[in-house]
């Protein structure tokens, strides 16, 4: 991995300059652990506390640097690598190798209790490659599998004429991308607001939230392909398994952050996250995998499909 090391080396030089210029700020972050630098960053000047003490600089500089800078602003911030109008700023979000992406995908499929996805797998290097391409793949896999399952369920019907139903791609894209971006914004905003007064440990940056949501959607890709098999019991089993795995990744990630809050708020936050996730999965299943009669006009509201699926389950 040549390029991450190169970046670290540049930051080391910059941090050394800042250290010599402002030794006061460095003692602040020296006593703090990796987590609390995210909190002190807001207090310190932008980039002023970068690097920490001497030994911290050598060991895990990149974690301090990027952790602080990403959490101190929303999106277009003053990253050391350049402003948001430069190409290098966005290149820093794609600083991953194949093995790292595969490792993160594995971590999203096999959540172990005690293994926080963000802390264990992201390690302060969130990327946008995984979330973006997982969402794109999910859009097409849901649309294509839905089309195939409709075709297979109606194959014997002589009156049925195959339709590619390409408009479903547009609908799937809108739904999935809105989920993958608006929900993390909401969750991140809410968590930051709740922690705003205390400046506690463990606030996640916006990018890390988007990242964990994106990777948690990965399990739905093989699930949607397996949904082609036309047995309702299998489909419900699959969706429950997928929701359990995906939901537990999210819960394991966000529980340590909210558990310091009041009991009610903590449970409510986690419950909301899980419920939204379930709504996405069930909504996709009901809309894209209708086994009932196709309406002559495309059904854009998901409330009509349940009627058709209950009719068809009796046939099956």
């Amino acid at each position, binding site marked *: *991995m040549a390029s991450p090391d190169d970046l670290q080396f540049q930051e080391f030089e910059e941090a050394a300059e800042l250290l010599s210029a402002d030794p006061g700020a460095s003692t602040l972050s020296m006593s703090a652990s990796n987590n609390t630098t995210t909190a002190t960053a807001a207090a310190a000047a932008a980039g002023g506390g970068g690097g920490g003490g001497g030994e911290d600089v050598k060991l895990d500089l990149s974690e301090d640097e990027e952790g602080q800078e990403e959490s101190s602003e929303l999106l277009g911030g003053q990253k050391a690598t350049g402003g948001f109008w430069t190409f290098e700023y966005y290149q820093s979000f794609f600083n991953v190798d*194949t093995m790292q992406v595969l490792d993160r995908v594995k971590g999203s499929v096999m959540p172990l209790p005690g293994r926080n996805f963000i802390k264990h797998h992201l390690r302060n290097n969130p990327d946008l490659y995984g979330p973006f*391409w997982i969402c794109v793949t999910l859009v097409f896999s849901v649309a294509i599998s839905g089309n195939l399952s409709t075709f297979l369920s109606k194959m014997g019907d002589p009156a049925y004429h*195959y*339709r590619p139903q*390409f*408009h479903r791609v547009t609908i799937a894209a809108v739904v999935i991308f809105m989920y993958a971006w608006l929900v993390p914004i909401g969750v991140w905003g809410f968590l930051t607001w709740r922690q705003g007064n205390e400046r506690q440990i463990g606030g996640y940056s916006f990018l890390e939230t988007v990242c964990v949501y994106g990777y948690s959607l990965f399990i739905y890709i093989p699930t949607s392909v397996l949904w082609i098999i036309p047995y309702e019991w299998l489909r419900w089993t699959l969706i429950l398994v997928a929701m359990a795995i995906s939901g537990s990744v999210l819960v394991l990630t966000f529980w340590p952050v909210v558990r310091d809050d009041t009991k009610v708020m903590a449970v409510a936050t986690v419950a909301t996250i899980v419920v939204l996730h379930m709504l996405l999965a069930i909504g996709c299943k009901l809309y894209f995998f209708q086994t009932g009669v196709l309406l002559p006009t495309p059904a854009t509201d998901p409330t009509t499909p349940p009627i058709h699926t209950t009719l068809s389950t009796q046939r099956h």
Partner: protein
Amino acid sequence: PTANQRLSAEEASRPFAGLSDVSISEDIPVEGDISVPVASSRRDEEFSTLDEPVKETILRDLRAVGNKFIHVLYPKRSSALLRDWDLWGPLLLCVTLALLLQGGAADSDDQGGPQFAEVFVIIWFGSIIITLNSKLLGGTISFFQSLCVLGYCIMPLTAAMAVCRIVLIGGSGTVSFAVRLVVVTASFGWSTFASTAFLADSQPPNRKALVVYPVFLFYFVIGWMILTFSPSQ
């Protein structure tokens, strides 16, 4: 143009004559090699292309496009495709493919196949996003070179679409579906192989798979659109 040539020739033969002695006399023949710096010779080339007949200009571009088509047919790691990129070929292929995908089962209702604009958007925005992705991951290929390669490698899929439409004239039963499946799968593999042959070298080695996967997805989606084309009855 010729006046400038004569001017530089006269200046070269009489270096101390000064600019006051500029006379364009028609009876001094200018012949032989004029040793001028490189920049001037490029100026000569540009001027000469202004003078050439239009047919030659068009034929030169057509020959370049055809040359690239041949490179896609027999993909090997060559830099010819990358050096002189052009977007005529991709535009032609995209329009052909989008037109061939029309006239399907469902132009009237929107349960059907992709509209012309949808095909266009998928191909061009897909190519742009894949190019941005490979550049963000640290690729050394330039933006338009990548668009050029991705566009030209759609050619096998366009050929498959033409074959599918011909097969569909004969009937749309299981046999025709099997034939279409084989043809589309083969051309999808060919497209992916051809484009990775051109693009793979420009990526850092530990990120090759990250760049190849979106290309694979892109051609898979186009292949899906071709395979699910169902004729109107």
